[in-house]
């Protein structure tokens, strides 16, 4: 009898809670707040990403939205920076009452906004920022990174270099003087020291972010003649460096590694020679070897090209990943809630550990231990192909994220120090263009 009473009480309690969940009415729209660069040099990423977000939202709404509810976007400019960015973010969450946020591109912005999102209890997807440390130092409930961090991105590039140019003896680095330039070199050099300790670093150059001239750096590298030159610069800085180096023969003298160069390939056009190693911050390439014949992938790329005049670059695909993660989480939460509209907390619960696939690359899994996305990495080498007025990627390797991402709970740099030379000998599938 006692057992029966307990069971009855439990059933009643379940009914009450379930009733509360059932009472969650379907909203008229899902509001998404997006932080992206709409001004400043990083708008080369932020503006295409906004175009992608608008395109994806429009397509999504045409198909009925998420769980039958249309999405509505609002944007804030990361270029505002500092307190203005935080104020705008708070306004978006508290006044506009967005249901989820995608923030942000810059790791500096993510460092600022992640604690705010946690404080405001709003689900936030770090959709493009790469600093590994953000999710290594604290466990968050409301913050997820829907792509990789800098560690696998740099490690993939290094392993590609070690596999394709195993005999190099000297290396120089030319990175932008800010957080990403410094952190990416720390990751790369730590792993290099662990896997190929005999390599000599002959120059570490960190010109000012946004520097208009690299002549002196190019002269020094021409005089030093390093076997390899690494740069993780991006945007106009990378374009300037590559063009100035090319005009003076440096690209022909040393093997250049462009850590995140995928986003500059189209702009550099014929000025980019063959034989440069290029990373893509994920397995992002508009001619992805495993997806290039996929109808939906081709349609997305062509629609984006028609809208903006250029093929998608990695921030575009990162934006698509954030949308897909949100859609997957909502679908999962709705299903878990018996088909009823979920609460925000139920959506957050459903997001942890979820796996989603945009169809534009390999699936991404959000690691439940630290909410870090496990995203494959594509690296290739530049080569001319008929029909394109810019170089394409050839001999592409796609790296398994589970192998090249530091384990949850272990700091990136500490993990990289434990790598052995054999690590670079892993089997990685290679694809021709």
């Amino acid at each position, binding site marked *: 009898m006692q057992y029966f009473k307990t069971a009855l009480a439990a059933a009643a309690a379940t009914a009450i809670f379930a009733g509360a969940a059932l009472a969650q009415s379907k909203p008229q729209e899902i509001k998404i707040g997006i932080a992206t660069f709409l001004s400043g040099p990083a708008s080369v990423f932020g503006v295409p990403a906004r175009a992608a977000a608008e395109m994806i939202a429009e397509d999504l709404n045409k198909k009925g939205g998420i769980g039958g509810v249309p999405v509505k976007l609002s944007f804030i400019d990361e270029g505002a920076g500092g307190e203005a960015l935080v104020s705008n973010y708070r306004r978006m969450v508290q006044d506009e009452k967005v249901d989820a946020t995608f923030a942000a591109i810059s790791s500096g912005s993510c460092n600022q906004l992640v604690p705010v999102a946690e404080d405001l209890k709003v689900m936030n997807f770090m959709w493009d920022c790469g600093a590994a440390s953000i999710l290594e130092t604290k466990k968050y409930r409301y913050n997820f990174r829907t792509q990789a961090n800098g560690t696998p991105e740099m490690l993939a590039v290094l392993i590609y270099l070690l596999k394709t140019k195993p005999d190099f003896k000297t290396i120089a680095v030319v990175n932008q003087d800010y957080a990403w330039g410094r952190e990416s070199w720390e990751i790369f050099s730590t792993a290099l020291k662990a896997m190929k300790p005999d390599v000599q670093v002959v120059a570490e150059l960190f*010109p*000012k972010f946004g520097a208009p001239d690299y002549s*002196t750096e190019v002269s020094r590298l021409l005089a030093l003649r390093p076997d390899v030159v690494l740069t993780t610069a991006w945007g106009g800085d990378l374009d300037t460096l590559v*063009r100035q180096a090319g005009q*003076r023969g440096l690209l022909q003298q040393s093997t250049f590694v462009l850590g995140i160069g995928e986003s500059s390939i189209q702009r550099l056009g014929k000025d980019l020679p063959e034989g440069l190693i290029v990373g893509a911050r994920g397995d992002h390439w508009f001619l992805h070897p495993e997806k290039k014949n996929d109808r939906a992938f081709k349609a997305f790329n062509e629609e984006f090209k028609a809208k903006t005049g250029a093929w998608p670059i990695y921030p575009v695909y990162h934006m698509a990943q954030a949308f897909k993660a949100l859609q997957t989480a909502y679908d999962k939460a709705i299903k878990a809630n018996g088909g009823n509209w979920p609460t925000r907390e139920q959506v957050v619960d459903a997001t942890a550990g979820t796996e989603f696939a945009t169809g534009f690359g390999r699936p991404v899994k959000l690691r439940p231990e630290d909410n870090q996305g496990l995203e494959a990495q594509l690296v290739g080498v530049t080569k001319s192909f008929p029909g394109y007025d810019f170089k394409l990627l050839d001999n592409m390797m796609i790296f398994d994220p589970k192998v090249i991402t530091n384990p949850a709970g272990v700091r990136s740099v500490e993990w990289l120090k434990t790598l052995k030379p054999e690590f670079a000998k892993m089997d990685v599938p290679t694809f021709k263009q």
Partner: protein
Amino acid sequence: MNSTLAILAVLDGISYAALVFLVSVGLSLIFGVLRVVNVAHGSLYAFGAYLAATFSIKVAPVSPWLTYPALLAASIVIGVVCGGFIERFLLRPLYGRDDVLQLLITFAAFMIMDNLQRLIWGVQPIFAAEPLKLLPNVTVFGVNYTSYQVILLPVVALATLFGLRYFLRRTLAGAVILAVTEDREASTSIGIDARRVYFATFIIGASLAALGGALASPTTSLVPGMGADMIVLSFAVAATAGLGQIEGAALTALMIGLTRAFIIYLQPEFEVLVPYLLMVLVLLVRPFGLFGAVHVRKI
């Protein structure tokens, strides 16, 4: 550092100094005559660069050599249109009023032009290297240099320096400008139209800023925000030289260029600090800059 590297560093330093001088001399000229600290100078530099690239891209298919006159044409267009507009409609109503107002109005112009730049040319980097590719490379101790950077830019910088000196000291128009600079009231009383002098000087200064941008455009990517970076550097040069000092701007640009180049070879970590360290050191010893003079206030 051996002598070979030292020579390479000197070449790099001269090339960089030439560009820095071309950009900062306009700022110095405008301050020297109008006593206006023109924050919009960086935007004029950026507009000059973007318009020069636009012109170059248009004329290059006709003849690549037309890109050179295109650079000059872009500078003049920006100087006359943008410079003329700023002076006539934004600054002229504020002459004789608090200096802070001039600073604010040129800052507002800078912000507006920064947004206009994005609206007109977008956010993707633009590169128009045709003028640079036309000239051959020169090889020094086995290191390639573009003659555009190590020969053409320094020659243009020297021509600008001596041309300005000649104009201001050997021509009637220059004498008129110097008279207004020295004493506006006295020059007005002898029949000089100070308004026209201010207008013309501002246009020349704006054209020089645009020329700096135009000449830089074949060597660098044009991106949003490029004007802001350049205005900071130009202020450092102008302040170190002494505001309004044209020869001082040339010498300071050379000091900054050479020190920066040697630092990159020896201690690259300090590259970013060079212009500002030099500025602080000079201003600690000479608060009015290297060539600035103490002005006696008239009561």
